[in-house]
C-alpha cells in the first residue's frame, strides 16, 4: 500500500481519446458489409393495427429485409424485478414484444424494422410501409388510468393496475399518529416525467459469424453482461457462450442505458437473418419516445407534527406511472428504491406509503439518475420546508429538531428505519451546519427582506437528503423480488513484467473508472498508475459483471477489485517467502516491496510478478501465475447524505427564476478522486435543478408528447447555472473495504426540492403564501402563483 494516488485529483487517463475526437462510440464502429436499420413506429398512443403492407417497401432497391410483429412478435423483453400486490398476488406482467402486431400502446411503439444498404434507403422504405390503424382513446395520467372507464392498455390488466404495494408501519398506527398531530402539513403534487437525454443516442450493431456460429452485439449500454444474460436467457434463447456483448465508449447513461431494449434483440435477429452486420442508431426524436423516462408520480402526502415541531407521522398515497410496458427495473423504482427512503434524515416514528403502479399509453418509465430516491427526497424535503413556513419555524431549526443523532456504524449501531433499511453511518447535523456557514444564513435573511421591497424576490431553499447506494446486497434484493444478484466482479491479472490488467464488471460511461480504479490498484500494489489498465464493457474479456447504476461502481465494483488485490498480495507474499526462504507470515508488503520483517531482504512487486510466471524453482504447493478474480457482494447498501441549499431570485414581473447560488455539502464517504467526485456532483445538480425549473415531458389529450425535441424540451444550458459551491464531509462507510458510499446520484437527489423550496420561500417573502409551484417551475407557473 502506498499513498500516492488515493484521495488525489489525478487527471483522467481516458480523456485523451475524447478530447482529440477518438472516442469510440457504437455509432462510430463500421463493420464490413454493414447494413442499416430503421424502425417504423406508431404515430398513435393507442391503436389497433388492422393491417401492415410492406410490399412496396420490400420492393425498393437496396432494401435487404423487413421484419414485422408477424415474424418476431412472439419474442419479448422481460422485467427484472417482481413486486407483489398487497394481497400477495404476483404483479401483472404483460408481454413487451420486439415488434407489435396487434395493438400499439404508446407513441413510438415499434411496428416494423427495415434493413437496407444505407440509412437513407432504410428510412425511405419505412415511409413506404402502409399501416392501417384503428385509433383508440389513450390515457397518460396514472391517477386517471385507474378510474372506471379509463382506456385499458392491456386486456390482461384490469384497471391498468400492475400492482398495489405498501411499506412502513401499519396504516392504522399511522392514522392514529396523524390524528394526534398538532399540525399537519399536506401537499398534493406531481413529480413530473423526465426524459433522460444522455447525449449519445442509443446505438446497436448486431453481428453474426456463421463460421463459428457466434453473435456479437455492440451496444450503448451501462451493463453488457446483464444485456447478454437477458437477451440470451429470456428473449431469444441463444446459448450465452456463443454471444459476445460489447459496450464500447458510451456517451452518458443516467439510467436510460441500463435496460434491455427491444432493439438490441432486433438487430441481433436481423443480423442472423441477413448474414450481415446490422446497425441501428436512434434519432433524438426517437430517444424522446423510446428511451425509458424517469419519475412521474402523482402524490398526496401529509406530515404531522406535535406542538414542539417533532414529526409524529408521515402518510402518503402515490400513483406511479410505469408507461405502457414494464422496463427492466421499472417495478423496483417506485417501491424498493423509493418507499424505503421515506425515513429521510428524520426520526419520524410512524410512516406509511400506499403505492399504486399503473400502466398508461406512454413511454416506459424506469430508473433515471437517483431512481425513486429523488422522489422520496422531494416529498420529504418539500413537506418539511413547507411545514416550517406554515408553522412559522425556521426550516433549519425544524430539521435540527427532527434529525437522527450522529452515529458512525462502528462503535455505534446503524440506524434502523421504519421502512426496512438500516443506515450505515451518518452525521446529518454536520452537513447542515457547514451549508449554513457557506450560505451566511443570517445575512441572507436580511438581504431577502430588502429584496422583498423590490421587483426581484429572493428565496432560500434547503434539502437535507439521504439515499441508498452501492446497489446492492443480493440476499436483500433477492428477498424483495430482484431476479438477479447485484454483486460485482473484479479480476486482477498481473502480467509477467509486472504490469497489471484489471477487468471490472462495472461500466464507465463518463464516470472515469479507468482513472479511479487505477488509482486504487496502483496504491495497493505500490506501482505507477501507467502500469495499470482498466478493462470494462466486453463480455469476452470481463468474466462477469452487473454494470454501473445506483452509484455502485466504486462501492461494489471497487470492492471486488480490492478483494482480488488482497489475493494478489497474499500470493505474492507466499512467492516472496519461498524466494527469501522465510515463512509467508514474516513477509510484509508496502510501497511495492515484499520484505522480510525486520530485515532489509526484499523483492519488488516486479520480481514477484516475473517469478510467478517463470516458476523454475517452485515448491509443489505453489501454483504459477498471478491472476485472481473475486465476486464482491455488499452486506448493506451505502447511505450518502448531504445538505443542498439553493438561493433564487424571482422576477416579480415575469415569474422568471434565476438560481443565484447553489451550495452542496455532500458526504459520500471516503473519496478516491475528489475532482471526479465533484464532477459527478456538478452534473447531478444540473439535472436536479433542470427538473425543478426546466424539464418535463408533456402529453396532449391524445397521448402525443408535445415537447419531444430539443426545440421544445428545455435542457439545462450553461447560462442556466452559477458556479456551484461545493464542500464535503467524510463519514466512511463501515462495511466496505474502501469506506466509500457512492457519488453518482447525490447531486440529482438533493437539489430538486432545494430549488422548489427556494422559489416558494421567495414567494412567501413577497406575501404569496402558496404551498407549491408545479415543476418545471416555468416563469408562467411562478407568475400565476404570484397572482393569487
Amino acid at each position, binding site marked *: 500500500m502506498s499513498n500516492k494516488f488515493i484521495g*488525489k*485529483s*489525478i*487527471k*483522467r487517463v*481516458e*480523456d*485523451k*481519446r*475524447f*478530447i*482529440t*475526437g*477518438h*472516442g*469510440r*462510440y457504437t*455509432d*462510430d464502429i*463500421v463493420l464490413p458489409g454493414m447494413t442499416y436499420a430503421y424502425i417504423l413506429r406508431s404515430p398513435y398512443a393507442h391503436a389497433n393495427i388492422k393491417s401492415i403492407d410492406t410490399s412496396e417497401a420490400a420492393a425498393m432497391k437496396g432494401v435487404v429485409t423487413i421484419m414485422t410483429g408477424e415474424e418476431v412478435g412472439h419474442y419479448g423483453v422481460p422485467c427484472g424485478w417482481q413486486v407483489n400486490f398487497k394481497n400477495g398476488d404476483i404483479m401483472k406482467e404483460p408481454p413487451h414484444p420486439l415488434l407489435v402486431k396487434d395493438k400499439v400502446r404508446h407513441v413510438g411503439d415499434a411496428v416494423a424494422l427495415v434493413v437496407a444498404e444505407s440509412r*437513407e434507403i432504410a428510412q425511405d422504405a419505412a415511409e413506404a410501409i402502409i399501416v392501417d390503424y384503428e385509433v383508440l382513446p389513450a390515457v397518460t395520467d396514472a391517477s386517471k388510468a385507474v378510474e372506471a372507464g379509463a382506456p385499458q392498455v392491456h386486456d390482461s390488466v384490469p384497471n391498468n393496475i400492475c400492482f398495489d404495494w405498501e411499506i412502513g408501519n401499519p396504516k392504522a398506527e399511522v392514522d392514529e399518529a396523524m390524528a394526534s398531530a398538532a399540525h399537519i402539513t399536506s401537499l398534493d403534487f406531481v413529480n413530473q416525467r423526465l426524459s433522460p*437525454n*444522455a*447525449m*449519445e*443516442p442509443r446505438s446497436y450493431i448486431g453481428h453474426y459469424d456463421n463460421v463459428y456460429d457466434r453473435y456479437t452485439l455492440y451496444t450503448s449500454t451501462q451493463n453488457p453482461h446483464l444485456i447478454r444474460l437477458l437477451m440470451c436467457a429470456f428473449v431469444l434463447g441463444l446459448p450465452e457462450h456463443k454471444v459476445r456483448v460489447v459496450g464500447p*465508449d*458510451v*456517451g*452518458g447513461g*443516467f439510467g436510460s442505458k441500463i435496460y434491455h431494449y427491444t432493439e438490441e434483440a432486433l438487430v441481433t435477429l436481423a443480423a442472423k437473418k441477413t448474414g450481415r452486420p446490422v446497425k441501428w442508431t436512434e*434519432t*433524438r*426524436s426517437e430517444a424522446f419516445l423510446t428511451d425509458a423516462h424517469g419519475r412521474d408520480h402523482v402524490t398526496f402526502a401529509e406530515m404531522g407534527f406535535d406542538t414542539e415541531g417533532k414529526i409524529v407521522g408521515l402518510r402518503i398515497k402515490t400513483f406511479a406511472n410505469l408507461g405502457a410496458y414494464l422496463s427492466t427495473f421499472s417495478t423496483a423504482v417506485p417501491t424498493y428504491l423509493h418507499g424505503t427512503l421515506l425515513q429521510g434524515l428524520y426520526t419520524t416514528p410512524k410512516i406509511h406509503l400506499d403505492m399504486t403502479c399503473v400502466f398508461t399509453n406512454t413511454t416506459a418509465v424506469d430508473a433515471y439518475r437517483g431512481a425513486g430516491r429523488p422522489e422520496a427526497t422531494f416529498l420529504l424535503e418539500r413537506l418539511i420546508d413547507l411545514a416550517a413556513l406554515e408553522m412559522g419555524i425556521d426550516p433549519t431549526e425544524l430539521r435540527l429538531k427532527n434529525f437522527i443523532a450522529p452515529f458512525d456504524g462502528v462503535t455505534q449501531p446503524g440506524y434502523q428505519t421504519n421502512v426496512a433499511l438500516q443506515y450505515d453511518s451518518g452525521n446529518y447535523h454536520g452537513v447542515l451546519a457547514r451549508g449554513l456557514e457557506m450560505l451566511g444564513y443570517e445575512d441572507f435573511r436580511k438581504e431577502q427582506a430588502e429584496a422583498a421591497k423590490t421587483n426581484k424576490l429572493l428565496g432560500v431553499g434547503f434539502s437535507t437528503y439521504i439515499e441508498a447506494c452501492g446497489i446492492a446486497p443480493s440476499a436483500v434484493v433477492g428477498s424483495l423480488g430482484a431476479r438477479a444478484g447485484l454483486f460485482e466482479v473484479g479480476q486482477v491479472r498481473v502480467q509477467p513484467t509486472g504490469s497489471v490488467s484489471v477487468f471490472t464488471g462495472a461500466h464507465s460511461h*463518463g*464516470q*472515469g473508472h479507468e482513472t479511479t480504479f487505477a488509482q486504487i490498484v496502483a496504491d495497493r500494489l505500490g506501482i505507477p498508475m501507467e502500469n495499470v489498465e482498466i478493462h470494462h464493457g466486453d463480455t469476452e474479456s470481463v468474466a462477469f459483471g452487473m454494470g454501473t447504476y445506483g452509484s455502485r461502481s466504486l462501492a461494489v465494483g471497487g470492492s471486488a477489485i480490492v478483494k482480488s488485490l488482497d489475493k494478489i498480495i497474499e500470493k505474492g507474499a507466499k512467492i516472496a517467502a519461498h524466494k527469501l526462504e522465510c515463512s509467508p507470515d514474516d513477509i510484509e508488503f508496502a510501497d511495492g516491496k515484499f520484505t522480510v520483517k525486520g530485515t532489509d531482504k526484499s523483492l519488488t512487486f516486479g520480481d514477484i510478478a516475473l517469478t510467478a510466471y517463470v516458476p523454475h524453482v517452485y515448491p509443489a504447493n505453489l501454483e504459477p501465475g498471478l491472476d485472481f478474480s473475486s465476486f464482491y457482494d455488499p452486506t448493506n447498501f451505502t447511505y450518502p447524505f448531504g445538505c443542498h441549499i439553493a438561493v433564487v431570485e424571482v422576477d416579480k414581473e415575469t415569474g422568471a427564476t434565476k438560481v443565484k447560488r447553489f451550495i452542496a455539502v455532500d458526504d459520500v464517504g471516503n473519496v478516491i478522486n475528489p*475532482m*471526479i467526485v*465533484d*464532477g*459527478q456532483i*456538478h*452534473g*447531478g*445538480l*444540473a*439535472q436536479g435543478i433542470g427538473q425543478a425549473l426546466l424539464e418535463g415531458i408533456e402529453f396532449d389529450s391524445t397521448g402525443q408528447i408535445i415537447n419531444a*425535441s*430539443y*426545440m421544445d424540451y428545455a*435542457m*439545462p*444550458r*450553461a*447560462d442556466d*447555472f452559477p*458556479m*456551484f459551491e461545493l464542500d464535503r464531509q467524510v463519514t466512511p462507510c463501515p462495511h466496505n473495504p474502501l469506506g466509500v458510499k457512492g457519488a453518482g446520484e447525490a*447531486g440529482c437527489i438533493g437539489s430538486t426540492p432545494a430549488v422548489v423550496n427556494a422559489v416558494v420561500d421567495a414567494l412567501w417573502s413577497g406575501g404569496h403564501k402558496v404551498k407549491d409551484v408545479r415543476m418545471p417551475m416555468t416563469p408562467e407557473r411562478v407568475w400565476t402563483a404570484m397572482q393569487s
Partner: protein
Amino acid sequence: MPKISVTVNGTSYSHEVEGRLLLVHYLRDVLGLTGTHVGCDTSSCGACTIHLDGKSVKSCSLLAAQADGSSITTIEGLAPEGELHPLQVGFKEEHGLQCGFCTPGMIMCAADLLEHNSTPSEQEIREALEGNICRCTGYHNIVRAIQSASGQLETAAP
C-alpha cells in the same frame, strides 16, 4: 449528384455525394472522422460543431454540398498530430468532460469564442455555449476549462 471538393484538416478531398447528404454524415461516414457527433435532429445540441472556413457551424444542419470549396476543421484537426490545443489541455486539466460525447463540439465552439475574445468573462463563456448541450458536467468544469485555456485560471495542483 453534386461533386464536392473540400479541404478537411488540411487534406483535400473530392467526392460525388447525394444532394441530401448532411455534412456531418460526410465527415463521419465518407471520411471516417467520427469525432464529430450527432446528438439531435434540430440543430440544438452542438455535438456536431465544426469550423467551416474558420467559423463554428453545426454540421448536422448543412448539406455536404453547401461546403463545396470550403476549408473545414474538425476536432481531429484542431491541433497538429501529437499535440494538443490549449482548449484540449484545459478540458483535461479542469475535468471539463465526463462521457466525452459533447466534448468535441464544446471544444470547437469554445475555439471560435476564443478567436474573437481571448479572455472571455464567465458570463460570456456561458452565453457562448448556449448552442451546446452537456448532460454530464453541469457545465461548471467546462467553464473552468475555457477559463484555463484562456489563461484565466491558476493551473490546478495535481
